[in-house]
């Protein structure tokens, strides 16, 4: 990327950093106070759930919440009204009950009649005394009534799950991530990209697929020696073998000038005048380089595609010193009329 482009993007990079900093600040100032909610004591006292959670009958989304207001607590706990420490762990800096991230679509109002107002059908455990992240009803509670297989078969996760991307689970059956997933995932992704997106954000894809990344993934995640990164360790010395084995794979991510720029920088071309010319002796002979070009044109293009006039066509053009460069059956696929439409044809066919 050019310095000019960098300078144009600088304000936006700064804006992004500021946004990130705002996030950091938010993290450090939140969740100072916690409120005790001893559900067990309330249950012993035979307090009905709805006595405190009175809005649950009308609650259609979990986002609304049904937590009692402070005045609801004081309806019974009149004596403790002046004793902030009765509920707040930090009474000198009391805070309201922090909002919790909600990932599910769930209509309590619709469920109350079905469970005959017995909340314990789903809520087997309740916070006691502190609210934790792990006491929401498990998925098994849902599946004891709902026939999950139907939703699963229909790919309809979004009926209940707002967002599955936060979970780290890997599928073990469909879309199994076993073996060399780096090499094998293309077939699933090509026909089921939407299914991939159920769990993976585009940021995950961009770590490898974005052609604008800062550095190789194994540079950014050096500790992940358990992963099978393609360019790990000394890839440079063996890249010509890997590229020959799967030219299309390199071409998908790396532009042709990627090769040329690096070879020129390191003196690995004839023009540099060094002894590091990658071509064997006598390569200029058409009988030597012709068959190579026929079978491995991508490697040729990697360095020599600097515009049509700068390479092979100087000899191979109509009336040039070399012969017809087209592969067999070329004229079957490309008729004479194409010459007028395709500027590449016009380089030689004037």
């Amino acid at each position, binding site marked *: 990327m050019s310095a000019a482009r960098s300078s144009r993007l600088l304000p936006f990079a700064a804006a992004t950093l500021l946004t990130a900093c705002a996030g950091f600040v938010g993290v450090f100032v939140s969740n100072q106070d916690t409120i005790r909610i001893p559900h067990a004591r309330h249950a012993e006292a035979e307090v009905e759930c709805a006595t405190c959670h009175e809005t649950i009958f009308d609650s259609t989304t979990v986002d609304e919440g049904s937590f009692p207001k402070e005045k609801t607590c004081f309806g019974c706990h009149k004596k403790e009204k002046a004793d902030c420490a009765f509920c707040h762990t930090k009474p000198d800096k009391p805070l309201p009950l922090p909002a919790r991230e909600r990932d599910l679509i769930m209509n309590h109002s619709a469920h109350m009649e079905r469970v005959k107002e017995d909340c314990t059908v789903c809520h087997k455990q309740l916070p006691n005394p502190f609210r934790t992240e792990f006491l929401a009803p498990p998925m098994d509670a849902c599946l004891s009534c709902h026939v999950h297989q139907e939703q699963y078969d229909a790919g309809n996760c979004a009926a209940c799950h707002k967002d599955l991307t936060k979970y780290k689970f890997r599928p073990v059956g469909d879309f199994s991530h076993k073996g060399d997933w780096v090499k094998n995932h293309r077939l699933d992704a090509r026909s089921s990209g939407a299914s991939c997106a159920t769990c993976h954000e585009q940021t995950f894809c961009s770590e490898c697929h974005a052609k604008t990344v800062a550095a190789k993934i194994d540079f950014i995640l050096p500790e992940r020696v358990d992963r099978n990164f393609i360019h790990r360790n*000394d890839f440079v010395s063996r890249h010509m073998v890997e590229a020959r084995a799967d030219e299309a794979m390199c071409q998908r991510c790396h532009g042709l000038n990627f090769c040329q720029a690096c070879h020129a920088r390191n003196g690995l071309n004839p023009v540099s005048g060094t002894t590091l010319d990658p071509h064997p002796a006598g390569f200029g002979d058409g009988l030597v380089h012709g068959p190579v070009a026929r079978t491995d044109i991508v490697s040729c293009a990697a360095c020599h595609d600097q515009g049509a006039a700068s390479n092979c066509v100087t000899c191979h053009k109509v009336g040039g010193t070399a012969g017809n460069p087209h592969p067999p059956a070329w004229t079957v696929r490309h008729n004479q009329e194409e010459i007028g439409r395709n500027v590449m044809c016009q380089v030689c066919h004037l």
Partner: protein
Amino acid sequence: MRGSRTVATVLALAVGTAVSAQAADVSVYSNTLVGGRPDIIDGQVKTVVPLYQLVGVRAKNIEVPGFDSLGVAVDAWGGLTLPNSSQGVAAGDVNLAFIEGAAFKKRLKLRLGRQFVVGGVARAMYFDGLFAEYRSNVGIGLSAFTGIPVDRRFANFIQGDFVVGTRAFFAPSFKTEIGASFIHMLQRGTVARQDAGLDARWQPFRSLGVGGAFVWSIADARMAEFDIGPRWTPSENFEVLLNYRRTAPDLFLPRNSIFTVFADTSRDDAGGNITWQPTKFLTLFADARVVWINAQPGFDASGRVQLRPFRSAATTLTAQYRRLQVPSANGFHQARLAARHVLPSGFGLSVDFETYALDQPVRGQTLSFSMSATATYTISKQWFVGATLFAATTPTFESRYEAVAKLTFLFPEGHH
């Protein structure tokens, strides 16, 4: 630079939306990396110090009238290499910057900005532009995208200056999807790519599935790619995957390159791999495939053993071997040993040793040795630091030493 205005606009919209709307789910990722490595500058090997800052911000489920959900994503980086490098002092780019929304019970999805489109002949198309998809309640859907392909880094090479594509699909379940797609890419008015294709995935049984894709180059009236692979997973700890693929590498060159007139080569490979987990703490993997390049055979075979010796995810040992032999070219034997151990205190250590022997010497050398050691410490649920030392002696570098230190922040914990 082409495309930067589009990205700038989307960035401004993204930040504006995030500030003005109530975001239900925000995640932040920051990674600061500083290293030291040798670089060739003006023919001399000099030590350079690259500094990278990577930042990602994602806000999802933003409540906006008219949408079921709205989200924004920005993933960008900036870098300095001091005192200089062969690739310049300053660099930076935006990997992703988009706004996306869903409406009509999430049947309609829209995404604007720098993004990927995955599926069909688009493969993993990376572009600045607009993507839209509508999926009916019976699984029939249509997606379309248009915009400007994103340039690759380290190159003045321009992949194209306009792209449009579409895919019609029928996806009645997770187990079945069939799609037909088309892509058309132009560079200065000349066709750079014009492909049509079919793709499918079918899972008749829970243990057996097959996926495949076929790509036809309209511009060259030839098959560009055919890929098919059945997968058999009889149990959670055993899987067999077979695959046959034919590609025409020259059809991966832009059609507006003069080199497209020189060849019509094809490359075939067929093989498969087996994964077996005899216990939860041991994974065995073997892969073997035959490669035909213009009817000349070569092969690529590898095996990997991954062990968690203390019956815990805290320690991982990996040993792998690979043999690659390419017809009319070079080949190598490659061996690698790697280990990672994380202590309950949060300290972690990773070591990696790799060697390979080339069949034909490169610069008079056939052997390559490289090793790295990484120490990490998890400061808190969100903060993570690490340092790596890398040393190698290879056909390309008589000796090479590199160091990297990094500081990572993830919010919420582990979310990226």
